């Protein structure tokens, strides 16, 4: 529970996709001229991240990791297919985006009309592939946390694009120096927002460590409205035990 909360806040504020690691900047800059389109794209990103990160977690866990193929039999324990992760992740993402597009078009034409045009854009959005790759390097321990990570990173991205779109709508009335107009000022504003977001760094105590429940968590539980939490106590321990048994044999 606590680790879910911690990961949730960490992914939204501290490791914000846009301000801390600059993922999805291309669409962030291109689609942030109006708030309404920004909301559409942001929602699509949350959705696709929420689907692809857990899927890629499963792929990573049962196919790609060092020794992940052990479920096929003990003789597969030495295989490390890690070098295939880029191609598998991007294929999963492209397929999922296509699939989601078809399903949404079929079952909810109104949602399709608002999200639809953004879905193909998303296949090549670095935030989506970045979400999966960071999930892999940060060694998220179970499926529930992977889902949490996907959704909360998406929310972080959503917040960022919403904020910049609102600022860009207002800044039209300001007298910006001509060479800075448009792109230049957007970069500088994003930089300033990023500095603001840095101050969230003090919110949790662990700096770049993978989240672990510490007694000094400062997150206030009353403020949490949304906590996508799926209790799935994956039988990790059991699996490692059987894995060890297999190795001992």
């Amino acid at each position: 529970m606590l680790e879910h909360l911690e990961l949730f806040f960490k992914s939204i504020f501290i490791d914000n996709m846009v301000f801390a690691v600059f993922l999805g900047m291309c669409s962030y800059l291109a689609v942030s001229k109006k708030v309404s389109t920004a909301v559409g794209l942001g929602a699509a990103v949350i959705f696709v991240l929420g689907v692809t990160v857990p899927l890629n977690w499963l792929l990573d866990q049962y196919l790609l990791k060092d020794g992940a193929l052990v479920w096929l039999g003990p003789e597969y324990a030495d295989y490390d297919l890690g070098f295939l992760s880029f191609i598998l992740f991007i294929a999963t993402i492209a397929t999922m985006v296509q699939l989601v597009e078809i399903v949404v078009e079929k079952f909810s034409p109104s949602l399709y009309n608002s999200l639809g045009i953004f879905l193909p854009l998303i296949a090549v959005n670095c935030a989506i592939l970045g979400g999966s790759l960071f999930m892999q390097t940060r060694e998220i321990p179970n499926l529930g946390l992977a889902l949490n990570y996907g959704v909360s990173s998406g929310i972080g991205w959503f917040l960022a694009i919403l904020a910049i779109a609102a600022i860009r709508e207002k800044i039209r009335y300001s007298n910006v120096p001509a060479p800075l107009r448009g792109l230049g000022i957007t970069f500088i504003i994003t930089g300033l927002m990023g500095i603001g977001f840095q101050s969230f760094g003090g919110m949790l105590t662990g700096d770049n460590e993978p989240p672990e429940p510490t007694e000094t968590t400062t997150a206030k539980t009353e403020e949490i409205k949304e906590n996508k939490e799926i209790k799935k106590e994956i039988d990790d321990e059991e699996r490692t035990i059987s894995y060890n048994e297999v190795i001992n044999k």
Partner: protein
Amino acid sequence: MALLSKKDANLILDPLADNNPITIQVLGICSALAITAELKASVVMALSVLFVLGAGNVVISLLRNVIPSKIRIIVQLVVVATLVIIVDQVLKAFAYELSKTLSVFVGLIITNCIIMGRFEAFALGNGPWKSFLDGIGNALGYGIILVIIGFFRELLGSGTLFGFPVLGDPVTKTGLYALGYENNGFMIIPPAALIVVGIVIWVQRSRNRTLIEEA
């Protein structure tokens, strides 16, 4: 230029300044910002993109009459992903420390919009030689901006270039530091990259006013 006709030379020279992928076309920002705290990482990133874009453009251009247009995105992704895996494995084998610094950003070359953008806009409609030149030109335009950002961030932030101290030693107070100069820690943190890009755009557009955007 005996080697290249004027038109071909323009394919390389245009993206360096007036049609720069980062400052004008706004493509491939993601990786450009995250790894530019050190000059060395910027140069390696620029070289990786040079390889992927040059080779990828040629492959796509050779295949352009065979790829059905409906599934072209996925074909393009597979081509890029293959090339990026090669880059990643080479980096891991010969420059392990550096590949740790670049972490996921090597993988993110796959979704670098410059690459998909050039495939779509150029390689699908032109021959291999032209596509190759176009790829090299755009990758160089991308690399130049990366090196400029990396240069200023490393020089002002850590007082080093490629890891060599060029402004003296901050601990023993030699060189500039003897005069009371201090490193600007602000340049190391991620948001500084955005501000540096903003300033690069500002300078470029002040010099060439035709590039200024309306509104």
